[in-house]
Structures are given as C-alpha cells and as structure tokens.
C-alpha cells in the first residue's frame, strides 16, 4: 500500500532550534487571527523573543554532542549539524533577538517603524483612517521569525534543494518587510519591488545552477557533488557553469559586486529596524551557505574559479569603499559600507584555509553586532517639524551634525560601531579584519589582504567623517532647515517634512538594551576575544560533508 516509500528517521532534537523558530512563526500567524487587537502586539513580541531565546538554548544543548562527535547529518542529509552551522544558527538567533527589540520599540512617539496598514495606497484616505485608529501591523513578528527560520536552515543545508527552499523562506518575508515602512512609503515599496525582482532573478540563477550541478553529479547533495568533482579531468562545462551560477545566487544574497545593486536602495527604503535585521542576519546566513558551498564543493575546482572569485573580491572592496565616500545619506553609507565589508569577509572565504571558517564567523559576529547597533541608533535620530511633531528618521548626513554635543552617549556608541566597522584596534572589527586577512595570507591570497588593507584605509575616511560631524561640528540651530533631505520626496505619515529640525527620541527601553548589548559585545570582542576565538579556531569549526 505504501509502495517503496520509507519514512526517514528524523532526529527531532537536532532540528529543535529551527523548529522552535518556525513553529513560533506559525503560532504567530494564529495569534494574528485569534488574539484580540489589544494584547496582540505584546503576545507577538513575547512569543518571538521566547522563540529566539529558546532556539539559542536548544543550540547550546546540541553543542556538546557536536563537539564530541564532530557533527551529524539529519533528515537524510538535508540538514547538517556541525560546528559552523550551530555557531551560525546561534548567531542568527541572537542577532534576530536583538533586532526584534529594535523592531518592537515604539519610542517616545508611540509609533513603531511600520505602516499601520501596509496594503493601503500611500496617501489615501484609507491610510489616514488606519493611522488615526492606531492600527498596528503585528504580522511583522511572524514574518521575522519565518525569515530567521529560513536563515537558520540556509546555514545548515546539506543539499542544494534544501538550500534553495531555505533561500526562498528567508527571502520572501524580507521582501514584504522591506515594503512596510511607516514613512517614505513609496521609497519603501520601490525598495521592496527592486529587492523582489532582483532576488527572484538571482533565485532563478541559483536554481538553474542547481539543475546543472545535478546534471553533472547526479545528486544535489553537497558531499556527492564534491565527490564527483574529485574525479573530473579537465574542465567540465556542466560543473563549472553550475558552480558559477550557484555562487552567483549566493553572492547576490551577500551583496557582492556586481550583484550588489539592490543593497543601497533596499537598505535605504526598508524600515530601519528591518534594515538592521536584514543587514546583519542575511549576511550571516548567506555567508554561512557560501562558506559551506565554497569549502565543500569548490576546493577541487578552485583553480578554475580563482580568477573570477578574486576579481569579485577586489571589485566588491573597491566599489563599496569608493562609492561610500560620496554618499550623503546615513543608511546608504551603511549600505555601501556593508558592500565593502562583504569584500573583506570574502577574502577569508576565498582563502580556502581551515582557519578561514572561524575567521569569517568571527567577522560576522563583530559586523553583525555593530550593524544591529548602528541601525538601532539610526531609528532614534529623527526629524522634527516646526510645530514639534516628531517625523521620520533624519538620515541626511548634515542632520547628524553636533549630535555628540547634544547626546554624547548615543554619539559615543555610534562612534564605537563606526570604529569597529573601520577596524580600529580594541574593537571587535579589528580582530575580525585581522582574522580574515591572516587567513587570506595563510591561503596564499596576500594580494587580496593588501587590497583589503588599502580599502580599509580608504574606508576609514567616511567613517571618520561621520565622527567629525557628530563631535567636531556645531549643530545647525534648531528651527533652521537641517540640510536638504536626500532622495525623492518623502511620503511621511505626518505630513510636511520641510523645515525640520533634528531631535533624538527617547527609546521605550528596548532599543537601549540592544544598543548597550551590541556596544558591549563590540568592546569585549575587541579587547578579550580569546574565549570566542578559542571556540572558533578549534577542531569543531569544520564542515561535515
């Protein structure tokens, strides 16, 4: 009756972290349907926080087993439980938790960063009505959980099909979330559209690559493909084309040049808490998957791919830093800086050294903490209309002038994140850079390390420029227009943005927690990185094929 089908043995405990997050996402959808509007937000937030924290606990419980047996294969090879996947999943869960706090914070204005009704046409009466009634879009929380669940699978996928499914699971909620900004809604929707179209395109490429690799190896499992590559003599067009297309799909997600063009627009258009979440967690997940593909499949063909990969790394660093130099919008600067950082991290990936895995994970931790923290601060710096109504974020650079005089602690924290991005010693970013460049030099990629160092030196300029603005420049007097707002005409919820002053809104406390935690991480990982590096350089950070 059941034919030849045998149900696979499933080690549910090993899947617990992923199941907790995705399960909570499903419950979140039910909460939307059944919990009354009043307590809904609280329930959703609590559920999301418990789920991400629970995932971290579950991962910690699995850790001992992995350190002892070196990792296991679950679901017949679809999901792999090894050191890197556990670490990256943990990182995704922690960063999601920190991002959720920023997402949930309504600040002193009582409004969160999301449109009251994302489906409403911007500027329509319906939108006005939804806003007046104080409608809150709490679907945000399950969407984030779904994305986080997808990211966790992405880092642990053992075959290319699972990887593709995970890619879609993480991407679709992000497309939606990008379009839900409360202010500048057209910009936000444009960003979502761009992200979706380009993302769909890269997904298609990825899938096509998977098909070609299946044609080559007769399997979509990474270990089977790796095994098949070992026997190839000369150039196999299927293998090469397939590998390149899969890599392109992944490089799109990490935002490497020339597949980066979505980054600045999406980072700028998306609601800022989502930008922070996306910038940190997507990068972690995508680099996790990229590491696995590169370290498992590519080694035997890396001589063929080396010129292409090197060119991409160099281009990414160069374009990211040079274009960031001329940006005037804070979110776009951070976006291009993200592109540059992709280049730095890639030096550790293409090094193809065992130490590269640990280096990249450390870099991602340092970068993720600073990114979530930096975007959390961006959510608090707001424009203020002449009548005292607080508007959207003041993202134009000139609006940040003098912040250090008025809000020293906030400015100090932001400077700390910038210095970490810049790779100044005694911040986590420096140890990260040191680690990936060391791996690159170890892996005979010294030119990449030199280029990375030069790019870092150039990048310092635009980070430092922001510090100069915040601390050494006097603020424009209040009431005066603070520079011209960048970008297309802003569609805000509260009407006119002209003649806006700048103010820092008080957080409800949640964002403050995130900023304090990420700042502490940035300093601690910079001064005492030994315990973390101890784990990352150990035997456990190797991939189980």
């Amino acid at each position, binding site marked *: 009756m059941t034919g030849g089908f045998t149900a696979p043995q499933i080690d549910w405990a090993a899947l617990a972290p992923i199941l907790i997050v995705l399960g909570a996402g499903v419950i979140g959808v039910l909460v939307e349907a059944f919990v009354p509007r009043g307590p809904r937000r609280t329930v959703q937030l609590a559920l999301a926080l418990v789920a991400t924290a629970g995932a971290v606990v579950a991962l910690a419980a699995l850790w001992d087993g992995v350190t002892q047996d070196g990792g296991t294969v679950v679901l017949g090879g679809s999901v792999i439980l090894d050191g890197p996947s556990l670490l990256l999943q943990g990182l995704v869960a922690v960063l999601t938790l920190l991002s959720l706090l920023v997402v949930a914070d309504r600040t002193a204005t009582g409004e969160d960063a999301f449109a009251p009704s994302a489906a409403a046409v911007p500027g329509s009466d319906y939108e006005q009505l939804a806003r007046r009634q104080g409608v809150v879009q709490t679907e945000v929380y399950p969407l984030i959980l779904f994305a986080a669940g997808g990211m966790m699978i992405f880092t642990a996928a053992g075959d290319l099909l699972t990887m593709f499914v995970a890619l879609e699971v993480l991407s679709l909620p992000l497309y939606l979330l990008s379009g839900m900004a409360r202010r500048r809604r057209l910009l936000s929707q444009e960003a979502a559209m761009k992200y979706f179209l380009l993302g769909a395109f890269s997904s298609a490429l990825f899938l096509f690559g998977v098909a070609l690799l299946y044609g080559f190896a007769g399997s979509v499992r990474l270990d089977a493909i790796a095994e098949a590559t070992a026997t190839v003599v000369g150039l196999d067009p299927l293998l090469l084309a397939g590998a390149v297309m899969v890599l392109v799909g992944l490089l799109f997600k990490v935002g490497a040049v020339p597949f980066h063009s979505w980054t600045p627009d999406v980072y700028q258009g998306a609601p800022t808490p989502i930008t922070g979440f996306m910038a940190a967690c997507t990068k972690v997940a995508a680099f996790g998957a990229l590491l696995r593909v590169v370290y498992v499949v590519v080694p035997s063909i890396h001589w063929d791919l080396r010129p292409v990969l090197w060119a991409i790394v160099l281009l990414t660093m160069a374009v990211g830093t040079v274009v960031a130099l001329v940006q005037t919008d804070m979110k776009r600067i951070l976006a291009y800086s993200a592109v540059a950082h992709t280049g730095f991290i890639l030096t550790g990936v293409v090094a193809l050294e065992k130490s590269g895995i640990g280096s990249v994970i450390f870099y991602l931790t340092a970068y993720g903490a600073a990114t979530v923290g930096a975007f959390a601060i961006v959510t608090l710096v707001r424009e203020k209309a002449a009548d005292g109504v607080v508007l959207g974020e003041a993202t134009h650079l000139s609006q940040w002038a003098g912040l250090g005089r008025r809000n020293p602690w906030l400015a100090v924290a932001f400077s700390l994140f910038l*210095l970490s991005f810049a790779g*100044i*010693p*005694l911040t986590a970013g*420096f*140890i990260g850079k*040191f*680690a990936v*460049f*060391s791996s690159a*030099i*170890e892996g005979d990629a*010294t030119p990449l*390390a*030199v280029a990375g*160092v*030069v790019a*870092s*030196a150039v990048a*310092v*300029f635009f980070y*430092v*420029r922001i*510090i*100069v603005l915040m*601390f*050494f*420049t006097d603020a424009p007097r209040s009431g005066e227009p603070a520079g011209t707002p960048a970008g297309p005409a802003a569609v805000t919820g509260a009407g006119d943005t002209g003649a806006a002053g700048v103010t820092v809104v008080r957080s409800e406390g949640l964002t403050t927690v995130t900023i304090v935690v990420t700042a502490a991480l940035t300093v601690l990982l910079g001064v005492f*990185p*030994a315990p973390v*590096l*101890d784990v*990352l*350089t150990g035997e456990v950070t190797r991939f189980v094929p």
Partner: protein
Amino acid sequence: MLSADFPWLTTLIVVPLVGAAIVWALPSSARRWVRHVAVGVALLELLLAVAAASTFDTADAGTHQLGELRGWIPQIGASYAVGVDGVGLLLILLSVVLTPLVLLAAWREQAGDVDRLRHYVALILVLETFMVAVFAARDVFLFYVLFEAMLIPVYFLIGQFGGQQRRYAAVKFLLYSLAGGLIMLVAVIALYLQGDGGPQGFLIENLVGLDLPVWTERLMFLAFFLAFAIKAPMWPVHTWLPDAAETAPAGTSTLLVAVLDKVGTFGMLTLCLPLFPNASRWAAPVIIVLAVISILYGALLAIGQQDLLRMIAYTSVSHFGFIVLGIFAFTSTSIAGSSFYMFNHGLSTGALFLLAGFLVTRRGSQLIADFGGLQKVAPVLAGTFLVAGLSALSLPGLSTFVSEFLVLIGTFARSQPAAVVAVLGVVLAAIYVLLTYQRIFTGPVRDELVRTPDLSARETWVVAPLIALMLVLGFYPTPALDLVREPATVTLEQVGVSDPEATVSTAARAVGADAAATGTSSGTTSDDEGSTT
C-alpha cells in the same frame, strides 16, 4: 624595599585609565575638582614611575626588565607582554613627567568651561595609558594595537579642542597615521606566519633572529618603516604634523610631538632594527639621505614660518631627522645619542610648545609677527623661552647638546658626508631660534602687549621642571647615558654591525669621561674611515 616583582608596568598602565574613569564619573557637583583629580592622578603616576625606575637595574640596562607575560589572545599568538630596557624606561619617564605639566598648563583652558575641560583632561589621561603601554610592549601585536588605538584619543583631542582648522587637521592626522599603520598590519601578519607561530608567536623575542627570505624581509621592513616614518615624522611624509600642531591645543601638541612621535623612532629602534637586520642594513644609506633631507628641510621651513606653533613643528621635523640619522648610522655612539636625543627632544620641544601656548593665550594670535618687545614686560617668560630655544639649538650645557653631539660624532664615524651636511642643521637651528626670539621678545614693546602679564606661579611650575631637567642632564648626563648605552650595544649586535673602532675613541675623547664608556663597546673592525679621523 621596593620589589622588582611587583607588576610595576601594569600598574603604570592602569592608573591613568582609572584616573580617566574617575574624571568622567565625577558627579556634576564635584566637577570643579576635575583638574585637581587629574593632576593628582598624574603625579601619583609619576611617583609610581620613579619607584619602578628605582627597581630597574641600570647596570643591566640592555636587557628588558620589569617584565610581565600573560596570554592574551593565544589563538592568534598575541600575548600581554611588557618590559622595558633603558630606552623604554627613559621614554616612559618622559611621558609621565610631561603629562602632569600638560594638565597643569591646561588649568584655565577651554574658557573655564569645566565640563569641556573634564573631557580634555580625561582624554589626556587615557593617552597617558597608551603612551606608557606602547613603550613597554614586548609583543608585536600588542604594540600594533596600541600604536593604532592611541590615535583615537589624539584624534578627539585635536578635533574637539583645536583651533580653526581642527577638523581638517584631525582627519589628516588620523588618515596619515592609519594608512601607515594598516600597511604595517599586513607585515605584522606576514611576520607572524614567517615565525614559529604558536600561542606566543608575536613575542618580539620569538621573532628576533628569524631566517627570512631576502625580499620578504625587505618588504616587511619597508611596511614597518613607512608606518614609523609617518609617525616620526620624516620628510616627505611629515605634512600632517605642522597642520596638527598648528591647530591642536598647545598641551596636545606637547604630548603629540614630544612623546607620541617618539613611538615612530622608538619603533625603528626596537622593532625595525632587531626584527629585520639585513633589510635595515640594506636600506640604511637611503634612510640616512632622507634623514639628512629632513634635518635641512625642517630647519629651512622653520625659518620661514609665520605661525609660532608651525615653526616649532618644523623644528621637530629637523630634530627627528637627527634621531633617525643616529639610529641608522649604526654606531653605538650614535644610537645611544639618538636614544638620549628622544628624551631631550621631549623636554625641549615640550617646553617650547607649552611656552608657545602661554604666549598664544596672552596674545590671542599664533602669528610671530603679532608679537614684539615682550622681554621688557614679561622677563620670566622671555627667559624661559630663551632657555628652551637654546636647548633646541643644542647649546652646550643643556642636555640636548650631549645627545646631538653623540649623534653627530657617531654618524661621522660611519658616513662623513652625512655628518657634515647634518651639522648645517645645527647652524640653521641657531637661525630659527634666535630669529624667533628676536621677533617676539626684543625691540620696542607693541602697544597691545604693554599689559601682557608675566608667567604666573602655576605657569612657572609648568616649565621649571623641564628646564631644570635640561640643565641637570646637560652638566651631568651620566644617569641617562647609563640607561641608553647598553641597549645601543645590544641593538648593534642584533643588526650585526660593529663600531668603526678608532672613531669611537675619538668620540669618547671629545665627549669626556661620561661618553668614554660608550666607546668601550664591542668595536672589532677598524676601517679606513676610522683611521682618517
């Protein structure tokens, strides 16, 4: 009895940091006292440093003492390793002597805005931590981290408290230094990979004497040297210094030029030479030429400056030329001279910058042309400025003379042309010092300056210790020379060069009994140069 086992250096590193934290944490009701707290901490630090120095065995100044070694980031081979030889100790003493004076000099700065002053003195204390630590670091990674991280407090000191062009100057300073530092970072990593690795792979003692491939060594040397040359600063990468010195508050310039820039020459001496001996010998001729150019270029531009602080900055470029010249002349006399020069230059330039700061506060202008005839209304200010200036031109009887003379005779033994051309720098120094003194202090009193007050008691206390030290060490330099002689010999052995013998004995005769012991070092070869002199 003070014990050498006490972690003196760590204490010296931590105390100012704690002081800075206290200054920042003072409740607003107690902020009137920030200056007192800061100066108190700095004086405590000075006492501790003197105590540490008293446990230092001068007879064995060539080996690193007061050492501490703890694992820091064993995974990448970095350790927390500190220790000082005579040169390191001398520079730490210089740092802790100057810091309280700079804090005292800033007493009335920032227009009495105590809140701003609080940040200023706290940053100075943070900087003191880094200064002490960087001269004590015995681990390449630790040194690098401190070398880069100390830029941040200076950056804020210039950018937040400086004059008109402070933003430009601060960013230029940071970018120049970081660019050099990041290039050095590649060499730091490469050096580790060339070494034995392991959890203590960055310890300097584990990296000295490696057998490096020729060009690897040369490239690494160049990367290190570039970073140090920018820091020192040498021609042609000196351009950040005049801008920074012109706009920074005088106290910041004092620490910047008198101590921080020494990290550059200190790095050449304690890292470049021992780690890359072959490459150092290979590059020495070119570096000597660059050093001589620095000496003359700095002196000539100093003569032409209209801004008092820029003038002092350029004199420093010239003096750093002497220091680098002495280091790369590879004689024990010249290296000992350079080491001592680093200390003396700190005293002399420190005094000049602090006095210039007092002048600028009084006049509200940095232009030399805005002054005139001050000697009649402010004789003490004029006298102290004259002594500080004379030390800059190395007048016999002041400590700078001893060191400059040692550098010149040491260099003469190695390369007569370099020494002869460098001597022109001394002549030019007389011109820029005396010309500046003449313009500011002599002639008829300008009407605006008639009411200029003379040095107050506080200000006198700021410069008096420096002048006293210069005079004492000018007549009796033995204590300082004892500290630098042995390290110079050790360095020379590490580079694998020996003294031209006959010349050194000439040198010894010239300097007198104190320097005679310098000449007793391991001279084994006697080349033609020696016999001709």
